[in-house]
């Protein structure tokens, strides 16, 4: 059972919410979509058929965030973010699922991350499905889809003049309480849109048995082949909605201890003070990135650490495509490998 939000009412709805929520929604930054704060008066950039460049994970795990301030007497004062309740509006299913996956990393039983927790707990995710997937999208391959609901409080389907709203949690119900129920015809139309979109996404690679193939091919020459083209920049990992690795550094001029996103693609990531580097070349670093997502995530939480958003594919400056890489591993004979 769904509800109807006429597109012309969206601004009003956002400005109503803005009274008690901080709202983030995709808007135009330069010429691409980017999550930015809104109170309803800004022009949104959500009717475009593509996702934001920068992943919304940054709203939960900012690229740089102050963990604490300190004094020269050594006292440290934690800086847990305090904010109004928040709404992330217009998040795509791949990115909402990614937030759900990040929960598994940061909201752990032992050593739960208080910074992530403070943001996540206060935030409702209102998603919008993808009517026309990009050729770089592969959400359906990794247990998501263009209208996947995981992690969301409500999911919108774009039906030209209206959004069909499917509320998924109590928070979602409350936020859309005033909107009328959809007619059967509208429900059917949404379903058709969703199914049409689903059909446009081809399976990108086989995930069954992939972990075993990767595990048994740790020393395979393919890693070197991929690393040959790799520039060693941080685009694939920084734009990834599930990559969460970070560095902790003291910014002495500001007397702040800061955590910054870090990436296994950088030489300095694993470089030790002794100058020994367990991952000395792009080969080991590329391998770490792929192994983490498609093997170690499974060991840790039994989930693939990828939601198929396709950003690493779209923005890689040398056209390295993780789908093609994984297909090559799939084609290997698992048992022959290991050498």
């Amino acid at each position, binding site marked *: 059972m769904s509800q109807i939000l006429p597109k012309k009412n969206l601004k009003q709805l956002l400005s109503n919410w803005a009274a008690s929520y901080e709202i983030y929604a995709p808007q135009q930054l330069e010429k691409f979509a980017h999550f930015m704060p809104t109170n309803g008066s800004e022009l949104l950039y959500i009717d475009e058929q593509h996702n934001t460049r920068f992943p919304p994970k940054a709203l939960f795990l900012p690229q740089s965030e102050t*963990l*604490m301030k*300190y*004094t*020269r*007497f*050594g*006292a*440290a004062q*934690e800086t*847990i973010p305090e904010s109004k309740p928040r709404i992330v509006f217009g998040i795509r299913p791949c990115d909402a699922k990614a937030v759900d996956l990040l929960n598994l*990393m*940061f909201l752990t039983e*032992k*050593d*739960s*991350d*208080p910074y992530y*927790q403070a943001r996540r707990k206060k935030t409702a995710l209102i998603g919008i499905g993808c009517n026309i997937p990009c050729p770089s999208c592969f959400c359906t391959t990794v247990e998501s889809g263009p209208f996947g609901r995981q992690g969301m409080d409500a999911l919108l389907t774009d039906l030209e003049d209206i959004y069909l709203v499917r509320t998924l949690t109590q928070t979602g119900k409350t936020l859309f309480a005033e909107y009328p129920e959809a007619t059967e015809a509208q429900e059917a139309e949404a379903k058709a849109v969703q199914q049409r979109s689903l059909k446009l996404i081809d399976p990108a690679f086989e995930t069954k048995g992939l972990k075993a193939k990767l*595990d048994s091919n*740790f*020393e395979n020459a393919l890693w070197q082949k991929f690393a040959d083209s790799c520039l060693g920049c941080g685009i694939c990992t920084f734009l990834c909605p599930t990559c*969460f*690795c*970070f*560095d*902790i*550094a*003291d910014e*002495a001029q500001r*007397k702040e*201890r800061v*955590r910054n996103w*870090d990436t*296994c693609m950088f030489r300095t*990531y*694993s*470089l*030790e*003070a*002794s100058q*020994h580097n*367990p*991952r000395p070349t792009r080969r*080991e670093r590329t391998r*770490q990135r792929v*192994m*983490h997502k498609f*093997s*170690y995530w499974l*060991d*840790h939480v039994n989930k693939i650490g990828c939601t198929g958003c396709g950003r690493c594919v779209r923005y890689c400056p040398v056209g390295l495509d993780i789908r093609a890489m994984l297909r090559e591993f799939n084609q290997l004979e698992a048992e022959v490998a290991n050498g």
Partner: protein
Amino acid sequence: MVKNPYLPIPMHILRTYYESTDRSLKTLELSFDDPENARAFFAAYNPGQFCVLSVFGKGECALGIANAAWEGDFVRFTAQKMGSVTQTLHEMKAGDPIGMRGPLGNGFPLEDWKHRNLVIIGGGCAFSTLYALTKHLFHPAVRNDYGELKVIYGTRNSGLCMYKQDIQSWHHRDDLEMHQAVDVPEEGWDHHVGYVPNVVKEVAPSPDNAVAIVCGPPIMTKFTLSALTGLGFAPEAIFTSLEKRMKCGIGKCGRCNIGPKYICKDGPVFSLAELNALPNDI
């Protein structure tokens, strides 16, 4: 409100002293500003664990804990002058404030080792947690739970030997067999001469009902593990403690993994059997 695992415990430096004659190794003993933190620390502490020391303005670095709980309400670390944080640690003096997170990691599986003979093998500055382990075993309430104790400790030269006075006295104890080594002959040196793996072969500890614990630089560890295997120690009876670049110390920041295992959270102590199951990513 959850406990903030990134927030260091406020500490002060109690005393510092150089361990090595070349002044590359310095020991710092830290005291707790709040006795409540001391209680919580020692309730959780197990030899083999490490802490992340926090020098405000410079950053953090992970160091193994070098004292046993019974020694008193302080925590001891020995730092090799290496990166920017350890350089600053070397300049710090008694009375200076410092932060500490820990104890982190799992430490040695002492419960599993009960009633077995222990062969403790260390090289260079990695001996610090083994020093903590040995001291822990000396405690009268602990010592009887374990069988014979052999300690093999090698350094490049005698000047680099840490905890000199204590280790000198261990030669005279009757509850352990102490073997010390330097890499090249020195005047007046009346212990072993040679690399640790060779000394291990020379001492030839028996693998019967025994567990071997190896901590040292990677190359020493590698050859010692094979020497022990040659002596008949099973992979399940050989343990080592690993080091890698660490930041968070709690399995979140990502960087210290070997395959699916995080050294900080799943280690730093691993049996050779466990290591053999991991990819070559060290």
